[in-house]
């Protein structure tokens, strides 16, 4: 008995379980044509190779299953791994897919997360509802992630992650990084890195009062400071994606 408790005590010192939240990109697959899928995946990765290199990834099978595509999970996984991405889970899979995933050591995430996927795919709809419906009856909004508001400066070396929209009321210093699954607003100078729509929301936008950023990115499409022309610097702009390229426009 005492022997046992000694062992446990010793064990308790050698490890500790902690809960942490990580941001992991989610890949939505919507086809059963694996060779087309592979081609597009590689194209996508080549747009931002550093972002995707050895990136962890959750594979979302919702579209495939809704459209009743028959896709061999093992083949799909092989294509993704070949592209250099590391699958750390699947979600919205059916029983067979879940079983196959577990067999090759891929965790299965509960399907309840589906709602948020739907939201990410249709952000405009959600936003319109947000703007118009008064606080009482808003069943649609319940699962939507609250906006994060930061009122103090974000300094070099600091990193902020927001699961929804991110509003920063103070400056973002060079060497700081702000990341949001939704839109980013900076009501001051943006000198650090700003990444909006990091879960793949191509409708996400960045708004700032004074663009001096080191890097801006929407859904993985990025520009570094060097790519920003003088005509867009040091003034209020909005940044959005159009046909896969970043557009920077004055806010009038």
């Amino acid at each position, binding site marked *: 008995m005492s022997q046992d408790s000694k062992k446990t005590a010793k064990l308790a010192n050698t490890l500790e379980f902690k809960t942490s939240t990580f941001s992991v990109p989610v890949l939505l697959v919507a086809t059963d044509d694996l060779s087309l899928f592979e081609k597009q995946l590689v194209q996508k990765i080549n747009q931002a190779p550093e972002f995707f290199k050895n990136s962890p990834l959750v594979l979302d099978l919702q579209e495939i299953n809704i459209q009743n595509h028959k896709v061999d999970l093992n083949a799909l996984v092989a294509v993704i791994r070949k592209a250099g991405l590391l699958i750390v889970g699947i979600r919205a899979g059916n029983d067979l897919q879940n079983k196959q995933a577990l067999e090759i050591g891929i965790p299965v995430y509960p399907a309840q997360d589906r709602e948020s996927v739907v939201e990410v795919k249709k952000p405009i709809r959600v936003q319109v509802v947000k703007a118009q419906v008064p606080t009482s009856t808003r069943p649609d909004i319940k699962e939507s992630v609250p906006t994060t508001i930061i009122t*103090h*400066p974000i*300094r*070099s*070396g600091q990193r902020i992650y927001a699961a929804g929209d991110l509003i920063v009321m103070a400056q973002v210093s060079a060497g700081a990084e702000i990341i949001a699954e939704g839109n980013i607003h900076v009501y001051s100078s943006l000198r650090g890195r700003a990444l909006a729509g990091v879960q793949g929301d191509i409708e996400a936008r960045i708004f700032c009062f004074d663009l001096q950023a080191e890097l801006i990115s929407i859904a993985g499409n990025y520009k570094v400071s060097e790519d920003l022309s003088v005509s867009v610097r040091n003034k209020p702009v909005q940044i959005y994606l159009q046909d896969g390229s970043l557009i920077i426009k004055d806010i009038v």
Partner: protein
Amino acid sequence: MARVIVVTSGKGGVGKTTTSAAIAMGLAKRGHKTAVIDFDVGLRNLDLIMGCERRVVYDFVNVINEEATLNQALIRDKNCNLLYILPASQTRDKEALSQEGVGRVLDELKKDFKYIVCDSPAGIEKGAHLAMYFADDAFVVTNPEVSSVRDSDRILGLLSSKSRRAEQNEEPINEFLLLTRYSPERVKLGEMLSVDDVQDILSLHLLGVIPESKSVLNASNSGTPVILDEKSDAGQAYEDVVARYLGEERPHRFIEDKKGFFRNLFGGN
């Protein structure tokens, strides 16, 4: 209530120790019992600036390790009997400092002193972290150049996230900017950032601008804090800093270069 002030910067050689010595002396001369601690374990030089290097028996690490009492280690300043110096050890490294130990020494000092000034080492490692961890107020010492400003910004981030006040969700540390080694002529030549440039990047309450001055070297050679050299520009600038910290309003005297100042006065350009 005692207040713990950290003098910090990230970058080395910007004037932290010079500043720690000056403001500790300034506070003590105004009647506040003040202790100044050298956190730069292994590289001690606060005692040189304070001119007490030949009276060091015990040091900060001895007190933390309970090899000496605080009273044994504190050195009373030769110019002001309300000022005490706790020197750093030259024979240990920063690993000798522990958070628990530093907290214990500060708590003991707080019983007896009004202000406790912590002279931080450079960098963002253990020594710098412990110097800032227990602070109530922070003097962020910055030189008017990009790398120093960037390091100060980094330190400000740590003050607001890795300090005791941040971790325990208390009122944040009061952060003040001290721009040192400022040379209006070199600003005009474009060789240095201006006060406005620095303020634009850091947006911080400006406690004072200390001009680049020969008097600082003279003071350190003679082992007296420059604030005691009342005729010197740097001494006066530190005097203003202490006054502003204690709530007085003083105009900034050393931002303009003299010629520029008169030109502005007469409305020219």
